[in-house]
């Protein structure tokens, strides 16, 4: 591939939205209220829309005939490079919202920078996505506050969710070799520079929600190298089912 780093870079962005969108898609019709069902479906929809833009671009960059669907659904388990955070299961609504918030905050900061990319396609996608993501962030932040500063039970559940997922936040700011190359070329976002702002903003919101910012300094990593948690395999077996079972067909 001529521009392999760019290809890898696009997947690094897109896979996060793909896997998070898939997780939210599982919830459809099973949420705590009709309004949250609509919102979660809507966020999932936005994410898959973004995913299509990215993979269509990746398909062009790869230039080897693979379509957006091939890229989305026909890779092996070790070839997905999403962060571990987004593949975590829908344990309960607190986990779902905490996962969303911890990702949205990063996503927002990230897209804000990606808008300035020298790569006009990425910059345009970022520009389109940022409106959607600012809505996602507002929605998830509101729920962090509602549950953090709601009842005793909801406070405890939300604190557990934040504590449980915290270990996956650091990975958001790791860089692969492709990432570094793309930063150097003015195409990629230097995520390391976002880290401090991220943790400050997250802490502020947690504080506002009467929640404690976890202090643990032990973090998990691996997603960006395709080393995932055991949850991802099952998600993929559903995601890929049709493409694997009925290969090379049009739908």
């Amino acid at each position, binding site marked *: 591939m001529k521009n392999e780093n760019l290809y890898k870079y696009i997947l690094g962005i897109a896979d996060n939205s793909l896997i998070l969108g898939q997780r939210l898609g599982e919830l459809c019709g099973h949420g705590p209220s009709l309004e949250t069902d609509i919102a979660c479906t809507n966020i999932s929809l936005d994410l898959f829309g973004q995913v299509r833009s990215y993979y269509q671009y990746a398909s062009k960059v790869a230039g080897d005939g693979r379509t957006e*669907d091939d890229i989305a659904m026909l890779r092996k388990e070790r070839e997905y490079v999403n962060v571990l955070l987004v593949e975590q299961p829908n344990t309960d609504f607190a986990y779902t919202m905490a996962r969303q918030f911890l990702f949205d905050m990063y996503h927002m900061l990230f897209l804000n920078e990606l808008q300035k990319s020298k790569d006009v396609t990425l910059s345009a996608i970022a520009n389109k996505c940022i409106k959607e993501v600012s809505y996602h962030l507002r929605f998830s932040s509101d729920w962090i506050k509602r549950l953090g500063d709601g009842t005793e039970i909801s406070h405890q559940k939300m604190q557990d969710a934040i504590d449980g997922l915290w270990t996956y936040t650091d990975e958001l700011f790791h860089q692969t070799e492709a990432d570094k190359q793309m930063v150097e070329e003015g195409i990629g976002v230097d995520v390391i520079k976002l880290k401090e702002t991220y943790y400050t903003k997250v802490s502020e919101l947690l504080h506002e929600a009467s929640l404690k910012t976890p202090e643990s300094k032990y973090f998990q990593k691996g997603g960006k190298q395709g080393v995932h948690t055991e949850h991802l395999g099952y998600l993929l077996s559903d995601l890929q089912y049709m493409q694997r079972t009925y290969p090379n067909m049009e739908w």
Partner: protein
Amino acid sequence: MSEEQIKNLEEQFEARIARDEKIEPKDWMPEKYRQTHIRQISQHAHSEIIGMLPEGNWITRAPSLRRKVALLAKVQDEAGHGLYLYSACETLGVSREELYEQLHSGKAKYSSIFNYPTITWADMGAIGWLVDGAAIINQVPLCNTSFGPYARAMIRVCKEESFHQRQGYEIMIKLANGTPEQKEMAQDALNRWWWPSLMMLGPTDAESVHTEQSMKWKLKRKSNDELRQQFIDQTVPQADLIGLTIPDPELKWNEEKGSYDFGEINWDEFWQVVKGHGPCNKERMKARVGAWERGEWVRDAAMAHAEKQADRKLNKAM
């Protein structure tokens, strides 16, 4: 109010409906009108909500991103329909909680079609094409029904439903023109959904209750059998067009009456499903009741938070 006064009001009310005026929530209305509308609108809302489940079942497994996005959008539309139908219903003085309670306790009904399982991707096509197709035939007349909020909701619903219907048919076209496996999948889905779709138009006129009253209130414009005939006449050519076969050996064009003759519907199956013993009745209720119960602490928290916020505002203001 004296009996005479009430009679007077009723006459004026019926006259307004006869003149095609809309009844609005604040208008006086007979109690039976109110109850009938609560029942029908909420049943319709429940159907939208339960209807999310069989299609939601394929979101994680949609075969392409394009189809996944379309399916998500469709299910989201259904949730939206549910939302504004519940709102229309609430204008009649019933709360959403009461309506849910009726659904969860089994007191309220929803469309029986959603008690069939979606077992292949082609079912997403068949549901859009047939189930939404039948729903539209049921619902288009309701765009002119007498109760304003319901009529307005139905206008929006029907617009979106016909988009869904085209989308479903388009899935079927793609499958029918695809590989032999895909065509077989499409035919199989048609085989399984055809008869339940015909049942969606309701029991035969002979068995149907409430019809006369409903006609007067414009909750119904045509009889079930007329609607069913309309659905069949509209759908058969669509199946022909894409080379699928309607699973009814008795189906035959009747030149004389200008419509199709068709075979006997299995009404035993219809009543079994209506009574709660269809393939997925229990699963559907379990999913909804489970979601509701698991969500209780979330709704409680939202309420508690809103109260705290209100108190804080009040304290600040004082």
